[in-house]
């Protein structure tokens, strides 16, 4: 080998090198051509595609959710408000160690296990480089604490937004309702494009009914962003259209007064303007705190509410079906007058009971000893059951049903709030449909005193009372008075929907019935005289009702109410309107298991009307426009 090396052929080596260089040069040429071809493929052949991808990268359309309209009462008192809220958001892709960051964050702003859980759930459903909330509703203090330490938390940011707040809280919970997180189910029946970027949708009450007015239309802005999704520059802006501000017919002060008046009872109060059908107050008790639902109620609290035997979520004012009891007697009396079944002045003998021919069964009066001879007016104010039993036998169920239906019993009022019950105004047809049984005469007797199959909601009773007060004229009950679009200050009135007028053969018949109702309160023997009629400085017409929850056995004396377990006690009802000459307010009160209608429900109705009067000392003509 050494000998071999000694005779290096330099010329041959040089030739070898030149050949090698030429070969490698060719390979290099091919490689360069490959690079050029590749880049040309990307830059020329696929240019349009990558151009689009580049634009997508650069521009991001951000949806700007609209500001939800506020809800006011008739006087401009805020019932549903928007409050600024701060939430803490994390862009997970910008955080190196998520768990460690959350642990450190917890030292600055409290992060509970539930927050982490919710965060992880949402994170898995959120596209990359988008912020995911870890905490909602930070206090000012927490915001300040985080701001001081924000340098230590890249990828964590405070975001400002609005959240809903209900200043009246429990007092108007069922009426105003609440908003909550948008579910897939919600999106099934709304225009989804309006809800991009929104967190809330109306779930109950007015918030639900007027969702499309309140919500508004989202805007958008096109921004240039970096890979972190951070907006650098705004390229285009379409402002969102805020939702309309709504004005309800409700009077917040009256609502509060009615809520107070009900005390600790379970029950409902509905007060409305009989002239317009506008609801002045609608209370259902027990109630709940609507703010709890806004940012997602916790499972425990929700179970607590749904498991409560007093059913706080249930809107008794519209959904509660109660036997109306004697509160419907004025309507039944009108039926008697109109069908010439009985003249107003005819006296009827009222012992403590009647029996039907061929039957041993006694249909008792609430007063065991009876009322003696009573005419129609007396029968109303003393609430004689026997008088009406005898009337019912003459009228028959068909007439009872016809007149009950005329006053809205048995069908929903069509109020502009969700989930209303229709109640039952029984008839032959109804019974055949519901029970597949013929009508029995005894059932007519139960019906005429608002018992048996018959049920009505407090709202229906308020409507019935309004129709009496206005002598057959009226408008559909409603809570929406009008609205203002955010752009212009013009108040738009909600269209009034007149009810089919009740035209009596003889308009004097109204007076008979109304006189009877006035005497309920003011005649010395009126059922509510003692409870409602004291120290009155205005005129009031009313009717009590005490409806049985449990049937009493034959011959059994009505027991002292204190002895009866509460859930078997009678419901106490009272309907009223005032002032009689020019009615401004009609009220229906139901106190579940309250006992006597006059003694328990009556004073509540009186307090509601008193509260109304305190606010409107003149009792002048109604204004439905906000100030």
């Amino acid at each position, binding site marked *: 080998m050494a000998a071999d090396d000694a005779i*290096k052929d330099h010329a041959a080596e040089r030739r070898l090198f030149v050949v090698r260089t030429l070969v490698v040069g060719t390979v*290099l040429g091919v490689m360069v051509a490959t690079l*050029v071809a590749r880049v040309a493929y990307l830059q020329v052949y696929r240019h349009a595609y990558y151009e689009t*991808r580049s634009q997508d990268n650069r521009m991001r359309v951000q949806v700007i959710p609209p500001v939800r309209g506020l809800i006011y009462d008739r006087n401009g008192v805020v019932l549903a408000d928007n409050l600024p809220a701060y939430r803490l958001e994390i862009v997970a892709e910008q955080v190196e160690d998520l768990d460690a960051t959350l642990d450190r964050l917890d030292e600055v702003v409290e992060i509970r296990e539930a927050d982490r859980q919710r965060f992880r759930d949402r994170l898995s459903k959120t596209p990359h480089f988008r912020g995911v909330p870890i905490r909602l509703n930070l206090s000012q203090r927490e915001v300040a604490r985080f701001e001081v330490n924000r340098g230590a938390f890249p990828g964590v940011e405070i975001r400002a937004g609005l959240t809903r707040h209900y200043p009246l809280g429990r007092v108007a919970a069922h009426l105003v309702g609440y908003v909550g997180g948008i579910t897939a189910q919600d999106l099934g029946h709304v225009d989804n494009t309006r809800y991009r970027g929104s967190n809330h949708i109306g779930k109950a009450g007015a918030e639900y009914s007027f969702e499309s007015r309140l919500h508004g239309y989202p805007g958008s802005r096109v921004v240039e962003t970096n890979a972190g999704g951070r907006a650098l520059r705004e390229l285009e802006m379409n402002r969102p259209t805020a939702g309309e501000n709504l004005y309800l017919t409700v009077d917040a002060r009256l609502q509060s007064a009615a809520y107070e008046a009900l005390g600790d009872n379970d029950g409902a109060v509905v007060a409305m303007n009989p002239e317009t059908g506008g609801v002045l107050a609608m209370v259902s008790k027990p109630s709940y705190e609507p703010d709890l639902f806004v940012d997602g109620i916790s499972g425990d609290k929700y179970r607590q509410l749904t498991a409560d035997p007093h059913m706080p979520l249930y809107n008794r004012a519209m959904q509660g079906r109660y036997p109306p009891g004697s509160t419907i007697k004025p309507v039944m009396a009108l039926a008697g007058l109109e069908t010439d079944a009985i003249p107003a002045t005819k006296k009827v003998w009222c012992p403590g009971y009647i029996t039907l021919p061929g039957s041993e069964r006694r249909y008792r009066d609430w007063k065991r000893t009876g009322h003696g001879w009573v005419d129609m007016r007396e029968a109303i104010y003393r609430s004689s059951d026997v008088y009406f039993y005898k009337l019912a036998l003459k009228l028959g169920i068909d007439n009872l049903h016809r007149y009950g239906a005329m006053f809205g019993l048995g069908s929903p009022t069509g109020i502009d709030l969700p989930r209303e019950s229709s109640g039952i105004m029984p008839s032959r047809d109804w019974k055949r449909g519901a029970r597949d049984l013929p009508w029995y005469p005894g059932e007519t007797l139960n019906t005429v005193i608002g018992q048996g199959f018959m049920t009505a909601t407090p709202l229906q009773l308020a409507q019935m009372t309004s129709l009496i007060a206005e002598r057959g004229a009226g408008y559909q009950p409603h809570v929406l008075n009008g609205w203002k679009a955010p752009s212009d200050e013009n108040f738009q009135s909600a269209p009034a929907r007149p009810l089919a007028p009740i035209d009596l053969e003889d308009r004097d018949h109204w007076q008979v019935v109304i006189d009877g109702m006035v005497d309920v309160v003011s005649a010395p023997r009126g059922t509510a005289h003692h409870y409602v009629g004291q120290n009155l400085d205005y005129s009031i017409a009313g009717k009590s009702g005490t409806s049985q929850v449990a049937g009493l056995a034959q011959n059994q004396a009505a027991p002292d109410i204190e002895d009866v377990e509460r859930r078997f006690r009678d419901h106490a009802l009272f309907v009223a309107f005032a002032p009689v000459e020019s009615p401004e307010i009609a009220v229906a009160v139901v106190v579940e298991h309250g006992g006597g209608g006059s003694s328990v429900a009556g004073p509540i109705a009186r307090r509601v009307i008193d509260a109304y009067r305190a606010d409107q000392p003149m009792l002048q003509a109604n204004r439905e426009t906000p100030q």
Partner: protein
Amino acid sequence: MTTQTAANAPSTLSEWLVYWRIDLQLLVALLCCGAVGLFVLYSASGQSTTLVLNQAIRFGIGILGMLMVAQIPPEWFRVGAPWLFTLGVALLTLVILVGDTAMGAQRWLDFGFMRFQPSEIMKLAAPLAIAAYFHDKSLPPTLGRVAVAAAMIAVPAALIADQPDLGTALLVATAGAFAIYFAGLRWRVILVLALLAAAAAPLLWFNMHEYQQARVLTFLNPASDPTGAGYHISQSKIAIGSGGLFGKGWLNGSQAHLNFLPESDTDFVFAVFAEETGLFGVIALLALYCFIVARGLYIAAKSQDTFQRLAAGSLSLTFFIYVFVNIGMVAGLMPVVGVPLPLISYGGTSMVILLASFGILMSIHTHRKLLAT
């Protein structure tokens, strides 16, 4: 055999250049390349003058180093190459034992005042040592000598691969292999080796670290992980593709400026360049690189002994390989390997080493002796 008029004061530009051992064509091309690099960096870094200034200073130091290296007679490199190689292997061993860990790999030696990657030395030392080895052997080499040279490649490559830095290991091996190729490795052997390599590929795969495998997989299907490893490639392809024929213009490349493109000033700087200058800019840059490589190969062909030829040839090809691997990676032609774009990517060590290799080329070219004809 007299040396050129080195002792006399230079009177013309060409005399002056030779006196200072400068190859003008190479110098101008390198300066052009560096200037392009500074412009691209200014854009890629989001118009950071500090970063550009840093790079300019490094480039200046690199050019100065190159000119200093050029003053050294090529024989010194031949004599020094085995020592440099031995030192390199020793340092690589040291890295394995005491090296700093950065980003999950041990690549650095910390001397207190500076941190240093011994594998960078090997990029120079391996081809030089092999060239020196073959210098006094008759060429083409026997298989036995090829085996010795192959071992000289394998040892540092294995040490670097163990850090682990597969990319650099392959580059060092490639640089050494070029020297063997130029020495005259028989075509038959090359063919057999190529087949063997193809057969060994699966073996290599199973010895790769998971992140290395992931890189290969991501390369094969970038869409599989658009926010993770594939994100780099997807975004750089968007940057290049959206550039079009003429580019978006300097400082107008949205991909890089809006931070969609990661490592836009280091390994992925080519994407910024392609986005802003378009296909024409890319072709111009490739032409510049090709000119530098061609000049290197020309110097090799003109050189006067075996060591110089092999050294100059393999160093030039190594430079080309950097260019090819980097652009190929950024354009989505090959897996992501941490190879900077020569003279343009932000970073110190690699640029200084590269410029030093061009210093060697200049030295070789300017120290030629006039041969009697």
